[in-house]
């Protein structure tokens, strides 16, 4: 009988409430971050205005924002796929690096040439990212090893591995000893549009969003993932192989993140270098959390955070703010979002408590 009650309450706090809560969380986070900026000697109002102007104020700004949005969409999708099954892939960062490494290998060292190059890079990145994540997937599926810690620690390993390659065997012999690889040939690069840095990766990201939507909402495999994510015990009772699904989902998640690495090297950097992904894999967690279940949501939230990141980069130039400041801001958004969740569900929670009691 209490159950029915729970319903009424939850439906009052529908999707509209949620969107309002997200917007409110971002606004409050901006407000609080303003104090941090003030304390660091930066005028927050001017800084925020600059963020908007830089990211959205010109066609160049918008194209830059879309360039930033691209890896965010793909990694955001990667994290959200795992999320549907209550699996935490905190390792999109490392998987992105591995995807970038694999794509670079194809572009520079495999000997593949011509129109086959890009597809081969895509496949290599997809496989590399997937393999990298499959370690965590295997450990989690087989022995219930905490995937949060494993995927996270593997980020450090992936970045060190990339460093090893660019400082060592893959270093450009004509690069004046800089830790970078040689540049890719034209065949290994995405085309660019509108006389800007916007590249085909953006459309690849949108395509990924559509593919993930179809996979999750329309296929029997997506149905299984949703069932396992909502209630693993019931899924097992219904005869689903939860272990296998966990392994596959984490692997798929890593493979998608690998695509992001491919898109970054083929579309933007045109070579492998350090600092390829300044924390996209972590921002992806916020994106997945904000967007909850929807692939479209991932696209929208990625764009919003893309604005922040582009603006943040410009702050770095004009006020010498550290890049990492964007993290503080993202942390704040999450805090306030968690808090807003509570206020959406407040009455509901009390009832749940009573039913438990």
């Amino acid at each position, binding site marked *: 009988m209490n159950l029915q009650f729970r319903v009424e309450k939850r439906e009052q706090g529908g999707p509209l409430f949620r969107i309002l809560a997200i917007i409110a969380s971002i606004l409050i986070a901006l407000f609080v971050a303003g104090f941090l900026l003030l304390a660091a000697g930066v005028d927050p109002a001017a800084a925020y205005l600059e963020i908007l102007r830089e990211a959205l104020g010109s066609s160049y700004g918008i194209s830059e924002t879309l360039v930033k949005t691209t890896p965010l969409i793909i990694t955001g999708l990667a994290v959200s796929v795992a999320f549907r099954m209550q699996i935490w892939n905190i390792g999109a960062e490392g998987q992105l690096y591995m995807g970038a490494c694999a794509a670079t290998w194809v572009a520079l060292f495999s000997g593949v040439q011509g129109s086959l190059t890009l597809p081969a890079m895509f496949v290599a990145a997809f496989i590399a990212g997937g393999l990298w994540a499959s370690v965590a997937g295997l450990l989690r599926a087989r022995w219930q090893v905490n995937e949060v810690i494993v995927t996270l620690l593997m980020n450090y390993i992936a970045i*060190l591995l990339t460093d090893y390659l660019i400082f060592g065997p893959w270093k450009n012999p004509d690069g004046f000893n800089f830790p970078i690889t040689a540049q890719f040939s034209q065949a290994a690069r995405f085309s660019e549009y509108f006389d800007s840095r916007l590249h085909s990766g953006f459309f690849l990201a949108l395509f990924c969003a559509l593919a993930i939507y179809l996979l999750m909402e329309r296929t029997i495999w997506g149905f299984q993932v949703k069932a396992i994510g909502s209630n693993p015990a019931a899924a097992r009772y219904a005869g689903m192989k939860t272990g296998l699904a966990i392994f596959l989902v984490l692997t798929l998640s890593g493979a998608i993140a690998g695509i992001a690495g491919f898109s970054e090297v083929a579309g933007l950097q045109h070579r492998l270098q350090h600092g390829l992904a300044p924390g996209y894999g*972590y921002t992806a967690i916020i994106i997945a959390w904000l967007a909850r279940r929807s692939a479209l949501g991932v696209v929208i939230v990625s764009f919003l955070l893309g604005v922040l990141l582009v603006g943040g980069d410009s702050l770095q130039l004009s006020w010498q703010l550290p890049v990492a400041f964007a*993290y*503080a*801001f*993202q942390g704040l958004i*999450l805090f306030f979002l*968690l*808090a807003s969740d*509570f206020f959406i569900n407040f009455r509901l929670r009390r009832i749940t408590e009573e039913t438990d009691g």
Partner: protein
Amino acid sequence: MVEILLDATVRAGTPILFATLGAIINERAGIINLGIEGLMLIGALSGFAATLASGSLLLGVFAAFAAAFAAGCIHAFICVQLRGNQIVSGLALTMFGIGVTALFGRGVVGQTIDGFERHAVPLLSQLPLVGKAFFQQDWLIYFSFLLVFKIWFFFYRTRWGLELRTIGENPAAADACGIQVNRYRFLAVACGSGFVGIGGAYLSLASTPMWIENMSAGRGWIAVALVIFASWSSFRALFGAYLFGGITAMQLRFQAMGTSVSAHILQMLPYVFTIIVLVISTLRLQKGASQQPGNLGQP
């Protein structure tokens, strides 16, 4: 040679030890804290800044505890009072810690202080092999020994400790016994976070007496994994932290000796080992009677 390696082991293991102990206190109360990495940075920066300003290392340690305590309160508030998602909140705390310390650390980058000095314990420091490593160290390391024992004593010999363990296992039962569940949980998260902060301060006050952006470099995550290895016991945490101190020490030693292996590959070792240890300890947990707090991670 072994003496030097052991000494380096203890010094490299101590920040991780503090962080692991702090995380254990969190998890004993049933709250997962993935913000350890961020808390270490907050502790490192505030400890360093306070020492720089006051000239007192003790004040620095207090500041590190207080700052991490305060940051832990955010996590505690979200997880305990608001029943928010503990994983997301912890990640947010880590992000917040990385960002805020980068922002405020700009002012103190490049400055140095006089870090903790060694004080030999009479007689004990003369012991062969272990004497130097364990009894010719700085005060923070001696404090960590004490803390390991105190935490065990607290959990198994005091009423508060029993009540806290009960909350971590079964909050409904604790509530039925009239224990103020939320208050305890909140305090446990905040205090545990404070000790993590001291671990961070060890980095900036003893290991390398300066502030470097992102200087914890994943140690917080290693600590999170070590909690499982330690099966929530402070003595095993000591063992685990030194194991990792040992790997770090050996890796540095290899680099110093100028092996042909790339430094980047060597630096991977602690992370690879952490994953291996995590797998082994998870397997062991499943075999034997689980020490894991029964209600871990439930809002």
